[in-house]
């Protein structure tokens, strides 16, 4: 079955803004948006987009499908009876066609020190009970695809906002029983561009392809930041 797919094309050296271009692709019940893009690339090799694993693990094929942030590999044409419009992830700078500059996103991730901080110098393994693991495990499933940033209206208004994935990652390490870095992470989270930039719209959790629920992590972060605020009042 032939299907029309509109793709927002943008060449920074020629275009002032993205323009939609229509392509015809063959589609059956198993054709994903990524498969369709690969077909289009056969027709027009100049089409630029990122992809790698085709199985919702690498997080590189994020695009807007009919205005909603989706992973191309996890979204199927069968679910779109009418035409499909694919464009670059919202709230990011477009480099070419469907490729965006992920640098601001990566800078926000690294700002929250997303790694285990533990000064203990011994060779013993850090044992963890299933209950201790369960506290943070869901938040550890993030694949850094950036869909939540395209979904977040607050990140759209204020690119300085740390954003859903970064705050979720901070919360993931703060909740880890092996970690001692919470004090080092809290100043970023306590600022107006940290957890307090969130107004609990919740769309980040809806679009997350790994069901990480960033909105829950951010609101746990707000409770932690409010606790940190009270403790700071009693410190000299």
């Amino acid at each position, binding site marked *: 079955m032939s299907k029309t797919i509109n793709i927002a094309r943008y060449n920074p050296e020629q275009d002032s803004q993205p323009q939609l271009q229509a392509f015809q692709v063959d589609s059956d019940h198993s054709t994903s948006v990524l498969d369709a893009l690969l077909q289009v690339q056969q027709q027009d090799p100049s089409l630029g987009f990122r992809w790698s694993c085709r199985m919702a693990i690498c997080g590189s094929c994020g695009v807007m499908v009919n205005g909603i942030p989706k992973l191309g590999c996890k979204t199927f044409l069968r679910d779109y009876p009418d035409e499909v419009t694919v464009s670059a992830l919202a709230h990011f700078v477009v480099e070419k066609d469907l490729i965006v500059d992920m640098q601001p996103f990566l800078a926000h991730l690294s700002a929250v020190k997303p790694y285990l901080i533990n000064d203990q110098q011994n060779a013993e393994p850090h044992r963890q009970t299933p209950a201790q693991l369960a506290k943070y495990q869901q938040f550890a499933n993030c694949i850094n695809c950036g869909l939540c940033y395209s979904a977040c*209206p607050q990140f759209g*208004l204020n690119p300085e906002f740390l954003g859903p994935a970064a705050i979720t990652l901070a919360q993931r390490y703060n909740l880890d029983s092996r970690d001692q870095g919470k004090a080092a992470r809290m*100043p*970023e989270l*306590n*600022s*107006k*561009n*940290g957890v*307090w930039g969130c*107004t609990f719209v919740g769309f980040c959790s809806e679009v997350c392809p790994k069901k990480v629920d960033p909105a829950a992590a951010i609101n746990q972060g*707000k409770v932690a*930041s*409010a606790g940190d*605020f*009270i403790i*700071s009042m009693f410190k000299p």
Partner: protein
Amino acid sequence: MIQKNAPPKRSDEPVWWALFSAGGVCFAVVVPGAILALALLPALGVITADSLSYPRISELLYQSLWGLAGLAFVGSVICLPLFHAAHRIHHGLHDLQLGGGLLSKVLCYGSAAVISLLALYLIS
């Protein structure tokens, strides 16, 4: 010299968020209860008008227990919901790109504080 990687300034948002959260609970639980007791049940004839008479309510809320019940009632039905609404308006203005800065903060939380003080003054 600007210190590189200086920690960002702590936000004062926890204060407003705490008032917003407390007000939200009051809006969801206490305000419907008050509407039920003061508006719907008397209209349906479940409780008589006499049981809501001024001397009786005044005694119950504002004289017994040093007036603490009245303070709790006004606090949970008027003051905290006001701060809840002010927080929503302040952030709503930011979303609409009409404000969200210091001016809207002062106006929103300031008016919530003024009306709260007025309500508390009226029962004192």
